[in-house]
């Protein structure tokens, strides 16, 4: 996976999701692969903190003798940290407070697949376009009714 492709996938992620403030993509070793943060120092700090969070979650999972962790959601009063992991790679996002968790998880999973050059079932951008089309159709319908 090229870092440029991964960075582009992350850029698209924050473009389509108003709930995601920023995100980092971590490699199998937990190191930073790409991020949405222009400041590399900040990107490294976020990646290190997210990697530590995932490691702690893994320890918790190991103690509970459960299957591996695929997704982690930590909600705080002023925002949330949402992580999705697949094939060793992980994407961690910082969101606004009280996000629509299911939607954020879907977008992160799609981004992870895009970054790996896999063809997702549905591109994230399609959601916005579909919503816009629905709205236009509704408006047209209302205008016709009037």
């Amino acid at each position: 996976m090229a870092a440029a492709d991964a960075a582009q996938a992350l850029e698209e992620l924050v473009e389509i999701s108003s709930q995601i403030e920023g995100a980092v993509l971590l490699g199998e070793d937990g190191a930073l692969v790409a991020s949405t943060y222009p400041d590399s120092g900040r990107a490294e700090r976020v990646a290190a903190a997210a990697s530590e969070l995932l490691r702690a979650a893994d320890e918790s999972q190991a103690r509970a003798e459960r299957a591996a962790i695929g997704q982690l959601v930590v909600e705080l009063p002023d925002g949330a940290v949402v992580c999705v992991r697949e094939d060793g790679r992980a994407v961690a996002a910082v969101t606004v407070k009280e996000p629509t968790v299911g939607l954020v998880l879907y977008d992160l999973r799609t981004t992870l697949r895009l970054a790996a050059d896999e063809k997702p079932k549905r591109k994230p951008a399609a959601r916005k376009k579909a919503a816009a089309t629905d709205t236009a159709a509704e408006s047209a319908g209302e205008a016709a009714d009037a």
Partner: protein
Amino acid sequence: MRRLLALGVAGAAAGVALWRRRGGTPAERVDLHFEDGSMVSLPAASEDAERLLGLARDVLAAARS
């Protein structure tokens, strides 16, 4: 008079409790989703939840600094 004051204090405490319960203070929550499709919400006061909440605060702080 004292009884009235005690009633007032008790009423205020109940009001604050109700406000918090209705979402005045957003809750802190830790959800672990496992690859087998199962999910666990860690009890808020548990050691694991406290640790993960602390680390998530670090992520937020690093992202917003």
